[in-house]
């Protein structure tokens, strides 16, 4: 494996986010490692509480105290994001790492026009606003130039989400983190918004992380997939391999919980609920919900091991693709 310092793109090593509670310290993100090459799209899936959004916030260094990043390295194209001081990180947000939030409707300032919000973002990063910067940014997301004069309430949900993307792309960031950017949109708008995001990313060659829980969307959009459970990365690999031949039972169940075209009206939820991070079982966190759980699983946390180049899984099971249940 190549030395991470030489690798372009995003290199995350052993990222850990800790929340101190009265009785114990809870790890919201527990030793997560992955890389995203320039121009590559990584999907991060998991149920709510799996740590996927916390991972995103940690990359942006926006974990709210008393939570804190307790360890790990985050390198983006050779820059150590954890090594930046607060002012440096503030300048890096949007310019180097941009975040496209889930609820676009709540992220825009309701009393400012689209143009004013874009101008603010550029000025705040100490740049001059080129005369056609705003029109070009809007054109980039397929919005007419006239949108600049409008207020958020005059825009549809899809248009607001595009404005958020336009703002996120203003300074041509090296890393885009999109946290369920289309979960509130209908499928047509979703496809358009994802198309726009994908095109801009391809043009700029940025790294992209898409956080979500919709396996269908992941299959359509990302190159590689990371599956998180209870703060840990349980499976990582190319989308085709992970989807066609998952190795972790949790990944298998996530895939099976999404009904396919052929499987009409067939609902398979994942039984049980995600464990509380404050009361994780001693072994594998997924063992209580796993149909393959063995004695070993209840005692020893399975380490993440590389089963093929770029493909890793954290499970005690033998390395075989898991077939769907009959």
């Amino acid at each position: 494996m190549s030395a991470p310092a030489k690798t372009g793109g995003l290199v995350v090593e052993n990222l850990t986010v800790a929340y101190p509670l009265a009785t114990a310290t809870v790890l919201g993100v527990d030793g997560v490692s992955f890389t995203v090459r320039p121009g590559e799209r990584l999907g991060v899936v998991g149920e709510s509480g799996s740590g996927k959004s916390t991972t995103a916030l940690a990359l942006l260094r926006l974990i709210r105290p008393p939570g804190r990043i307790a360890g790990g390295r985050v390198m983006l194209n050779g820059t150590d994001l954890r090594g930046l001081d607060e002012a440096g990180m503030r300048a890096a947000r949007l310019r180097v790492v941009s975040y496209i939030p889930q609820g676009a409707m709540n992220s825009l300032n309701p009393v400012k026009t689209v143009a004013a919000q874009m101008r603010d973002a550029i000025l705040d990063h100490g740049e001059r606003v080129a005369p056609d910067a705003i029109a070009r940014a809007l054109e980039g997301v397929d919005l007419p130039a006239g949108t600049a004069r409008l207020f958020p309430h005059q825009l549809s949900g899809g248009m607001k989400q595009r404005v958020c993307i336009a703002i996120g792309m203003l300074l041509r960031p090296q890393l885009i983190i999109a946290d369920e950017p289309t979960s509130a949109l209908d499928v047509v708008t979703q496809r358009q918004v994802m198309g726009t995001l994908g095109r801009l990313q391809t043009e700029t060659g940025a790294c992209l992380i898409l956080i979500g829980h919709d396996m269908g969307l992941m299959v359509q959009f990302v190159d590689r997939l990371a599956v998180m459970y209870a703060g840990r990365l349980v499976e990582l690999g190319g989308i085709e391999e992970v989807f066609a031949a998952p190795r972790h039972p949790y990944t298998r169940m996530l895939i099976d919980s999404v009904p396919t075209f052929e499987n009409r009206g067939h609902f398979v939820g994942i039984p049980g609920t995600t464990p509380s991070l404050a009361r994780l079982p001693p072994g594998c966190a997924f063992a209580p919900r796993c149909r393959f759980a063995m004695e070993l699983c209840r005692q020893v946390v399975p380490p993440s091991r590389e089963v093929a180049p770029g493909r890793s899984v954290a499970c005690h099971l033998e390395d075989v693709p898991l077939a769907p249940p009959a």
Partner: protein
Amino acid sequence: MPRPPDARPDARPPLLALAGAGKTYGGGLFHRNTVPALQPLDLVVDGEQPPVIAVVGESGSGKTTLGNILLGLIAPDTGSIRFEGQDVWSLGRAARRGFRRDVQAITQDPFSAYNPFYTVDHALTVPLREFGLARRHAQAMELAAAACDSVGLNPADTLGRYPHQLSGGQRQRLMVARALLLRPRVLVADEPVSMVDASLRATILGNIVTLNRTHGIAIVYITHDIVTAYHVADEVLVLHRGVVVERGEAADVIGNPAHDYTRLLVSSIPWPDLDRRWGDADLRGAGRDAATTSKIQETTP
């Protein structure tokens, strides 16, 4: 020609029927512009063989207006809504109470459905006593616990807690349990799973389908998500800007869409299938397609 829902002398009138019901907003003193939210439409919810009807549309399509008309919360300004043959808006006090019990709602946001000052039991036991389904509190709690069980919730983990102590999925499943408790005849579910994860989505939709199949409750499932509509519904109505552009048997509408808008919807479904990629344009190649551009031009104010 829409047939009046009570024109069948031999049969009982349908449980719930819209005849030419439509709604236009605005047009008041300060709003000269009127917005036709829902063009007149007919819809029959049969009580003999209770269906699952999905209403699919994007934001602004009029789907929530339709849901609110069905719930008797908004009066249609053209046409009528009839419950067992009687106009809902001229029901007497007792009949209106019956309508309120028989036609229940599940809303999108499972948090705002609860009063944050009470434990979640309140949302379950009050209507039980209000509608005379349980006389004593203990009896109401027993029924509530049984309803929790039937949607796969552990009563000990859920009852007695405050809404903020439960996860979104638990709150929404509790709403399904509540619907089950009251044994309504129609359940209008407006985006019930848009705020929960995909894995829980399957569980909750499974619960809703069970309400229909084993308890005979007719379901009107309102959603922006044509995929879940396909999996849940018998009949699908596709709404686009207040107009029903296509309706019919669910497998037929999605398997063989006739209207351009439905075709666009179906081709945009992100199927979890490596061989069934997004419409004609694979977004990993990520080009812009004609549909995108034309739609944006249309929606520009």
